[in-house]
């Protein structure tokens, strides 16, 4: 499979899915006009990727500094999809929700996402500030 890469815009996150590394990363803001349309190719790639992944440890990183209510639904669906993929134990999925340490809402949302998931490891990772980057 090819990697899936989208550059960030002011209202959409950078998306970086690296096939060989088994890492999926979202970074930035998510409040586009048509959320379902924006995430459709993202989910298409992911579905195809999960169908063929075998014996992998899949690392999913989200550095989302702001998201609107329709993106909340998208993230819930994303995590449900990943949880389902980890269910049969074929692959291990580790999701990291990175949030600005003084953003209590983002922390609360992270906790909310986490409480419904059974088969993935979901880490809440506070970062020092909104500009913190993954290394």
């Amino acid at each position, binding site marked *: 499979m090819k990697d899936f890469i989208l550059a960030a815009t*002011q*209202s959409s996150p950078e998306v970086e899915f690296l096939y060989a590394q088994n890492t999926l990363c979202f970074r930035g803001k998510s*409040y*586009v*006009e048509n*959320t379902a349309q924006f995430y459709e190719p993202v989910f298409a790639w992911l579905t195809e990727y999960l169908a063929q992944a075998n014996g992998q440890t899949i690392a999913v990183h989200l550095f989302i500094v*702001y998201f*609107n*209510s*329709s993106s*909340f*639904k998208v993230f*819930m669906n994303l995590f*449900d999809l990943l949880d389902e993929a980890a269910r049969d134990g074929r692959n291990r999925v580790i999701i990291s929700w990175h949030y*600005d340490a*003084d*953003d*209590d*809402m983002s922390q609360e949302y992270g906790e*909310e996402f986490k409480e*419904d998931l059974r088969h993935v490891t979901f880490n809440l990772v506070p970062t020092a500030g909104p500009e913190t980057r993954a290394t």
Partner: protein
Amino acid sequence: MNELLFPRYFKQAGEDGVIFCMHGPMSQETIEMLEEALKKRVTQEQSDSGQTRRVFAIFVEQVQNIIRYSEDRVFAPMGSGELGAGMVIVGHKEGHFFVSCGNLIKTVDQPRLEQQLLTIQDMDREQLRTYCKQRGRSEPMAGSRGAGLGLIEMARQSSNFSFCFSPWDESLTLFAIQVII
């Protein structure tokens, strides 16, 4: 147009604590253009980053609701996305920020919207949290064009909100909501 509008508007805006007010057609581009300006102004007023995030979050939900649901549609040139007309006001009064918006809706849609708002208004934080998830996992409600979560989200990020419906003409009603942060 002989009367100079400025003195009247200036006085009123001062009394109401208005930081920012926009009336007319709005698009996604409007939100993106105003993001930095709005955040800067809110931070000047009060330097709590959580407050700034909440004000912006509610502003986005409100303007996206106007874009999606206003019955006052505006012809959009190719490629500029959807336009809906309404009005949005951001202000700071008595130590609280508020975001207030309004747009025309079909009068026949009022009962459904009113019921939904009353349901949300009655909920405590925990109930809102549960309801938000439940709605997030289900298909959008009839008449909803987003995820149908915008109003719940506004309630979650604010301390309270109020709303009103005023008759406009034989088929339209002006709907307004004011969210206090």
